[in-house]
């Protein structure tokens, strides 16, 4: 047994001797960092090596906002490898977020090479490397160190930690000038007070005067928070207001409207909006009418039916829409129940059908309740009279029920039209306008309102979005006016 010990010692010595040339990474001898770089959020880091780097050496640039003694407490910024550089691209300064240069000691700095995956590569023999590191926390002290490793990743070595602060700090745009808004609000409030005071002063009775006082708060709120924004929106539609220059917009004439009517998707999105609205309103009224008729009179379990059929209206719509989105997922309930494999929300036509079905599901209870209420006001004896005269059920429906329901259905259908036209939740939460979403264009299921949302809050073009809004408003106004004229629905108001 004793003879074994020297053998082990010898073997261990040999192993250590063999290992030394392999595991030794070229040590970093000196690190310097400076935040005096000219560009934004930059820190310049230079490190010198104890000897010329050999192939396989690598350097991780680590940084942190607090001092660290262990690489695992810091964040990796980028890595520089040592290796053969022939056939590698050599980009120019400013193309990368970690523009590095290397020197072999002759005083010349050479741009690093880039491997296929973009890793920085310096030639063997390099003795110093400097990097411009972008994306550092602005205006804060940053701690940096080089974590060098060798080709076998056996040894590693963290250099001393240096600190630097990038000179540039976040330059936020100056606060938007809020004076015009306050001025507008103030002047509207003032003129309303004057108007009401004049009206009140002209009233003969104390009653009339106090009426002005009672109405004033509501009118004021309406003027400031509805009419003012609407007017402001119309003004905005003639300006180049956008996300980055709030409050500094200037008038650009009809440019926004030219963009709206000239945009590639205008007719397509308008077409889908009309299809969406018309199909939905007809389905809502039709299904609502059918169910209201079915629940008319004595039906067993009427209360239970009504309560269940009210659910789509009672459950908040954002929840049900998301539930339907889950049902229509590729691995969702719809495909499960039917045994199909259709990517419903990923294909244009099925997605359009799905959003329409969901909105029909959401909207019929309201129509059902309205029509139910109207049905109850129809006196029962006219049906008895019709029965006696031998009028068939179909004719009774066409010539008695429908005409009697018309005064209730006509205004509610208009309201349904406006609501559906502006139904944001369903499209936004189901498909977000997709599929086929390309930047700057409406997707396959975008309706006008969801597209305007995209224009305003994804692309930040407030002026263009305002122009879209005005166009939508004019379409609705034109439609409502024509509809009311055609159906003589203007009575019964006030």
């Amino acid at each position, binding site marked *: 047994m004793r003879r074994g010990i020297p053998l082990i010692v010898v073997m261990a010595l040999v192993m250590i001797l063999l290992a030394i040339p392999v595991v030794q990474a070229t040590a970093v001898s000196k690190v310097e960092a400076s935040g005096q770089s000219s560009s934004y959020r930059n820190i310049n880091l230079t490190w010198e090596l104890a000897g010329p780097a050999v192939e396989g050496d690598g350097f991780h640039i680590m940084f942190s906002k607090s001092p660290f003694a262990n690489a695992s407490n810091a964040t990796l910024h980028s890595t520089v490898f040592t290796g053969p550089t022939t056939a590698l691209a050599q980009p120019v300064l400013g193309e990368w977020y970690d523009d590095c240069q290397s020197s072999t000691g002759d005083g010349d700095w050479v741009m690093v090479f880039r491997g296929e995956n973009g890793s920085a590569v310096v030639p063997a023999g390099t003795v110093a490397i400097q990097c411009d590191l972008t994306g550092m926390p602005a205006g804060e002290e940053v701690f940096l160190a080089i974590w060098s490793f060798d080709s076998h990743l056996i040894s590693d070595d963290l250099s001393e930690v240096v600190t630097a602060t990038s000179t540039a700090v976040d330059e936020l745009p100056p606060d938007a000038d809020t004076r015009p*808004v306050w001025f507008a609000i103030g002047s509207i409030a003032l003129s309303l007070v004057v108007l009401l005071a004049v009206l009140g002063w002209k009233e003969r009775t104390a009653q009339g005067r106090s009426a002005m006082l009672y109405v004033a708060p509501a009118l004021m709120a*309406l003027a400031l928070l509805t009419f003012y924004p609407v007017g402001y*929106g119309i003004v905005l539609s003639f300006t180049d207001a956008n996300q980055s220059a709030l409050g500094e917009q200037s008038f650009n004439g009809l440019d926004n409207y030219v963009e709206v009517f000239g945009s590639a998707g205008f007719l397509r999105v308008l077409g889908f909006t009309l299809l969406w609205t018309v199909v939905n309103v007809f389905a809502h009224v039709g299904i609502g009418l059918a169910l209201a008729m079915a629940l008319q009179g004595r039906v067993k379990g009427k209360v239970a039916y009504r309560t269940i059929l*009210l659910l789509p209206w009672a459950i908040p719509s*954002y929840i049900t829409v998301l539930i339907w989105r889950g049902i229509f997922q590729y691995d969702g*309930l719809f495909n*499960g129940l039917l045994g199909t494999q259709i990517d419903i929300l990923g294909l244009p036509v099925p997605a359009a059908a799905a959003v329409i079905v969901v909105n029909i*599901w959401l909207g019929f209870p309201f129509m059902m309740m309205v029509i139910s209420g109207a049905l109850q006001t129809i006196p029962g004896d006219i049906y008895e009279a019709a029965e006696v005269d031998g009028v068939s059920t179909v004719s009774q429906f066409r010539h008695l029920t429908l005409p009697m329901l018309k005064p209730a259905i006509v205004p509610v259908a208009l309201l349904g039209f406006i609501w559906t036209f502006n139904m944001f939740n369903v499209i936004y939460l189901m498909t977000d306008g997709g599929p086929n979403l390309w930047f700057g264009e409406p997707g396959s299921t975008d309706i006008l309102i969801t597209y305007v949302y995209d224009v305003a809050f994804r692309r930040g073009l407030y002026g263009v979005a305002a122009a879209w809004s005005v166009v939508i408003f004019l379409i609705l106004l034109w439609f409502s006016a024509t509809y009311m004229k055609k159906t003589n629905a203007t009575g019964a108001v006030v």
Partner: protein
Amino acid sequence: MSDLAIRWFIPLELRILSGMSLLSCALLLVVLLFDYLRGDYDSMLIHWLGMLALSVMILTSIDHTEEGRTKRRDMGLITSGITLACGITGLFIRGQEYLLVDLWAALVLLIPGLSGLYLLSSPVVSRWVDSTLERAEAEAGLARNRLLLPKWQAGLKHVVLLHVVAVVMIPVLWIIDVAISPGDALQGGTLFSSPTGEHFSNILGGENFWRWARNSVIVSIGTTILGLCLAIPAGYAFSRYRFKGRGAMMFTFLLVQMFPGIIILVPYFMVMKSLGLLNTAIGLILAYSVTALPLCVWMLKGFFDTVPKELEEAALLDGCSQFGVFYRIILPLSLPAIAVTALFSFLAAWNEFLLALTFNTSDEMFTLPVGLASYISATDAAWGDFAAMSLLVAIPVVLLFIVFQKFLIEGLTAGSVKG
């Protein structure tokens, strides 16, 4: 007279059959759509055949004329047979792996097929077909029709209603299933088999739910209070006083209700941004209370109209001031109405999505709707947690809605019909 009874009498069975076939045809349209979606063209052919047979059955079963009754009866029997055969074939063509839908599709054909064979071979139909009915029989048959037809019609009505109920309930049951199933399984195939409370404890144990709920409560209560403070006096003035500009003002309130939200959204956002009200509760409260204001004013005006004017006049005579009348008599009397209006504006604020999404973009200030939607993003969908949270959010709202449905619907429809 005798002729009349015999001429007018059509056996109940035929009416039932035509109604049933009509319903089946309508349902078969859905079945055909499903077949198309599955790409199962064999089943589609079978179902299409069944539909054709049913259409023939409808055409043959409604007719008063005496000629060709035998032929039509035979035709009806044949088509019933075909329908039945189609139903059975349709079931077998799916082989071993038929789903619930296939069973339903088969029933849509089997029920009218079977009832066709049964009803058309009944003795009354046979005698009617042979035109050998006695007068007394025809009169008894007419009486029977009058008695039984409504019951059968009610039965068909229930079938239709149950289908609608199924369509309404499927998403509801599914979300409950997802909420209590482990993981994020979407198929809901487990069907309540291994219930777990993990998602509920995730939601109730996390910070998000409570933070968003707090935001929602603050915004909704603020909206309710501010909205009522604005709406009650205005509604009262519109109901009780006649003054210059009343009509114009009321029309203004109506007009605003017709405004699409979108035209206000962008300028609203910019105004709120200028005033530094983005990501605050106040911004949303201001916006919501004004959005709901017109409807609240109209609802309250309607309620105040029902308070008798004599009460006020008596109080005025007794020396009560104008404001005293409003404060001491009108307000206490219309407290229930005010409660309903309050509930309405609370629910409207609680459920609002678009403005909350636009104004409050910071996670800290999300309201429940926006927070809930953030669980289902394009990149990541935590369906289980989402389901649990939606149940927590929806159940109180739905209960409130159902308990107060009569008042809410009255107020809403009154407002909307007038608007």
